[in-house]
Each structure stands twice: as structure tokens, then as C-alpha cells.
């Protein structure tokens, strides 16, 4: 096993002491230590991480990166991969606080339309007793009496929420809601699996905030930024990887994205863009696209698409 030097150790200790770091901060540390930037020396950077992980894996730890689902930026952290007796020690939170956190996590993760956040009021109204009754197999079943959970006051909840945000288990979204923090994205993959949260078809990370497949019977979810990447590479329609249905509710968004890009590049006007896309589509979908494209122009703003439940019909989804 290759031995690590103090530079590797500095990277690991920085993440362990300071918590998850944004990509640019982590890269800055790497540059400071080695004198080489990760961007220009990708191979060296990857080699460092690989060697670190070879050592860490024997202790069930891992240095990994994940994308913050709200802002789309990459963060690095050292995470624990196994929930065993030792890791249960690794928290300063009380049992009530952990139950509260679980409740918030479930509320966010089980949102049908994958908004990825809940309002402050919803968070404060989470009932801890439900966690005691849950059959998730956690140690809470043998924990303190429900009375202690009932007595978890509003002000305690507020204080706890602040602590969670401070420690990056939760985050405050730009629209003032509570979402999952970087630590949760890095650390809680197993938990998301237990909650049956769908994983992204593109990047294989849990999709707490993302887009759903139009097909009601299909559980596919993809992150916004993953879709954006997919769209920027292909000018044709995107098909759902599992059910093959065209990813229709993305069409207006993609157009708006493309429009923005074009506005920035000042290359083509909007009408000119549409014919180009039509030409690449097959004949049978031509009409649908016309309808889709046409109605998307006069459609309601993008955010409303996400809020509408799957059962409601939209002009763009006419078949």
C-alpha cells in the first residue's frame, strides 16, 4: 500500500476538521500544498485522492465529492461508509435532535415532485413521536419515552434547525426554505436508499431535488444540472432512459436555457432556434413538438410546471 505523506494528511485533516469544503476551496488547498492546480494537473489530483482512499477504505471511510443539489456546485468531504457501533458515537446531537432530523429528512426526501425542500413552518411542525413509531429499525425504538419527544419545544426545534444549518446537515435555500445540506448529500446515501428515494439515471446519486419523468408509471428522476448537461450535448429530444418516453416537461426549460445561452452569445434569435430543432426530430413527433413548442411559449413560468401534480394535465402534454 502506498504510504501517504504530509500533503495527503493535510488534505484529509482539513476535511475532517473543517467539514465539507467547496470545490474551489479544496482545490486551493491542493494548489497550496503541491504548487500545482487540480485543473491543470488532473492526473496528479486524482492520484492523490486515489491513494488517500486506499488507506481510508480499510477503516470504512472515503474521501468523496458530491454535487450540492440546490446550487449545483461540487463539494468534497470525508464520509463514513458503515453505520456500526463506533459511528453511532460520532455525534453530539441528542436523541430528540436526531429524531427531529430524521423527520425533516423524510419530509424532504418523500416529496412526490422532488422539490427538495420544505418550508420552515413544515419543519417546525414535524412530530418526533412519529419517529419512535417508525419501523426503520433505528435505535430510537429503544430510546427515551415518547414524553421526551413530545416535550421537544418549538424553540428547541428552532435552535436545532440553526445548528443543523450551521453544521451543514441542512441548508437554507434561496427562497427561504429548508433543504438538505452538503453533509447529508455526502454522507447519507444509504439512508436515501432505505427511504426508496430514486437515484439519478445520469449520475447515480439520490435525487431529492430534480425533475420527474412525465410518465406516471415511471419513477425515473434526473437532477436539473444533469439534464442540463445532457441537453447541452444533444440537440435532439431526450428520452427517458427507462420507459423511453420523451422527456417532455424538459422541453420548455431546455428552450429557455438555450435561449439564455443564445442571448449571451448573441448568435441566433429565438424563432430561428426552433426550426433547427424541428428538423432534427422525426416526422411523427413533428406535430407534437409544434404543439409543445408553441404552447411552451405562452406557457406559465417554469416553476409552475414542477408544482403541478402528475395527474393534472397541461397543454404541453397533449398526445
Amino acid at each position, binding site marked *: *500500500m502506498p*504510504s*501517504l505523506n*504530509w500533503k*495527503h*494528511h*493535510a488534505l*484529509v*485533516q*482539513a476535511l*475532517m*476538521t*473543517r*467539514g465539507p469544503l467547496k470545490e474551489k476551496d479544496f482545490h486551493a*488547498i491542493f494548489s*497550496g*500544498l503541491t504548487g500545482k492546480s487540480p485543473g491543470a494537473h488532473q492526473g496528479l489530483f486524482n492520484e492523490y485522492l486515489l491513494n488517500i482512499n486506499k*488507506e*481510508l477504505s*480499510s*477503516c*470504512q471511510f472515503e474521501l468523496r465529492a458530491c454535487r450540492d443539489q440546490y446550487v449545483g456546485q461540487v463539494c468534497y468531504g470525508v464520509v*463514513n461508509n458503515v453505520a*456500526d457501533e*463506533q*459511528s453511532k*458515537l*460520532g*455525534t*453530539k446531537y441528542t436523541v430528540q435532535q436526531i429524531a427531529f432530523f430524521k423527520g425533516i429528512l423524510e419530509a424532504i426526501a418523500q416529496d412526490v415532485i422532488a422539490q427538495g425542500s420544505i418550508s420552515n413552518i413544515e419543519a417546525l411542525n414535524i412530530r418526533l413521536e412519529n419517529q419512535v413509531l417508525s419501523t426503520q429499525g433505528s435505535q430510537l425504538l429503544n430510546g427515551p419515552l415518547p414524553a421526551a419527544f413530545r416535550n421537544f419545544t418549538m424553540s428547541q426545534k428552532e435552535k436545532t434547525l440553526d445548528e443543523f444549518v450551521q453544521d451543514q446537515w441542512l441548508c437554507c435555500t434561496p427562497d427561504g426554505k429548508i433543504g438538505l445540506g452538503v453533509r447529508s448529500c455526502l454522507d447519507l446515501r444509504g439512508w436515501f436508499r432505505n427511504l426508496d428515494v430514486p437515484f439519478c439515471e445520469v449520475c447515480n446519486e439520490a435525487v431529492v431535488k430534480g425533475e420527474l419523468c412525465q410518465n406516471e408509471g415511471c419513477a425515473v428522476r434526473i437532477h436539473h444540472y444533469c439534464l442540463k448537461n445532457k441537453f447541452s450535448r444533444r440537440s435532439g429530444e431526450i428520452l427517458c432512459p427507462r420507459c423511453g418516453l420523451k422527456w417532455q416537461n424538459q422541453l420548455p426549460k431546455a428552450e429557455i436555457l438555450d435561449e439564455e445561452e443564445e442571448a449571451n452569445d448573441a448568435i441566433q434569435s429565438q424563432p430561428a432556434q426552433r426550426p433547427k430543432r424541428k428538423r432534427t426530430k422525426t416526422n411523427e413527433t413533428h406535430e407534437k413538438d409544434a404543439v409543445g413548442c408553441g404552447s411552451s411559449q405562452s406557457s406559465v413560468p417554469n416553476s409552475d410546471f414542477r408544482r403541478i401534480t402528475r395527474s393534472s394535465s397541461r397543454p404541453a402534454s397533449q398526445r
Partner: protein
Amino acid sequence: MAGATQDFSQFDISKEEIDKLVAEVVRYVLFKTHQNSGCPIKREELVQLVTKNYSQRALPAHVINAAKEKLSNAFGYELRELLRCRPSSATQGRSTQQTGVAEAKSYVLISQLPAEVYKKYVEDENSAHLSGFTFVVISIVHLAGGKIPEDILWRHLKRMGLCETDASHPVFGNAKQALETLVQQRYLQKDKVNGPEGNTLFYELAERALDGPVSEKMKEYISEVLFRDDSHFVILML
């Protein structure tokens, strides 16, 4: 990896089992350190992780040594062994060189990185105030001869703006609790001394503050301060 320098062949245990034990000890140390904010971990706790399932006599010592190596190789942490020292009043009349008495051993994690590197990349600025507080308090106790009555200590702290009765100090929160944390982390220990006027509570330097690197740094720091502003500081100690 089971320590290359450790010879495990004397035990009738597979390499996988050894590796697993070592990993458990490493994880225990890391998580427990986080949970109790750096309070020393008793050797007995680590031994128990091994003896829980294995009864070989010399095995715990080997596993702990292998874990020490692992922590150093993988993370750059030193598993520093501290010998728990007892309050001076309890050791009066007894030689401290006695080997017959089994003093409790405990462990703390110390970063092995060079100081500038640690300061630049690793240090968490959100907890810098705690390090500062620790340093000031043990400096005061050191200058008082290693032992100081409780009320005198608080008198000095009050001059620096921290009152014993402060329950919600903007930086330190509950002042009494902040000092108590230093006792839990074994920088200080408490000692009740019977005096003519009754019991007095003394604070004394404990094993963590007396440990080599910490003690050296502290003396450096104090001498720096004394040279910079000696008159004020010396008067403070009187």
C-alpha cells in the same frame, strides 16, 4: 493493514480479523474524539473493543499499536499516550517513580502536520476561540506555580473580561462550563485541599498540559509575553 512492524503470528487469528479489529479501534478513536470534543480516551475503552470477542492476553496491546500506526499513516494523527496524573495532594509522601502503581493511561489525537501547514489549511477558525481560552488559562495556572486556587483564577479571568457568573457570554457561552470543559479534556484537574478555613478548590495542571509539546509551546508563549509586556503580566500574577 495490520502493522508491518507488529508480529501477529503469535496469535491464532486471521489477518482479516486483525485488520477488522484495528479498523474498529481507529474508528472508535476518531468518532469518540469528535463526540467528546477532544477529551482523552481511556485505554481501558480501547482494550475492551478487543477483549469483547477475543481473549488472547497480549492482543489488545498489539492491536492498539497497530491502530496507532494506522492513524499515523492514513490520517497523519498521533495517538498520544498520556499518563493520568493525580492531584499533588494525593501523591504527597509517595514517590512518583513507583512502577507498582498502575496509573490509568489515556489517549488523545494530535495532528502530526507542521504547525504552519496546520494553521494555514486545517485549522477551523470557528473553534479558534477555544484554543485561545485553553492557552490563556493554562498559562495563568503555570505562572502560579502549576496550581492555583479557584477564586484567584477567576479573578484573573475577570480582568480579561470573563466572569464566573457569565452564563451567556457572546463567545464562550457559560463561563463555568467553558472552564469545566478544560477539566474534562484533562488540561486541568480539580483538587480539594483541607485548610484551616475549610475546603478550598484548587485547579492544577493535568497530564495534557504537562505533556511535552504543549508544555514547551506554553513556556515559549509565556516568555514571549513577558518580554513584550512584562510589568503588566507579572503584576497580574501577584
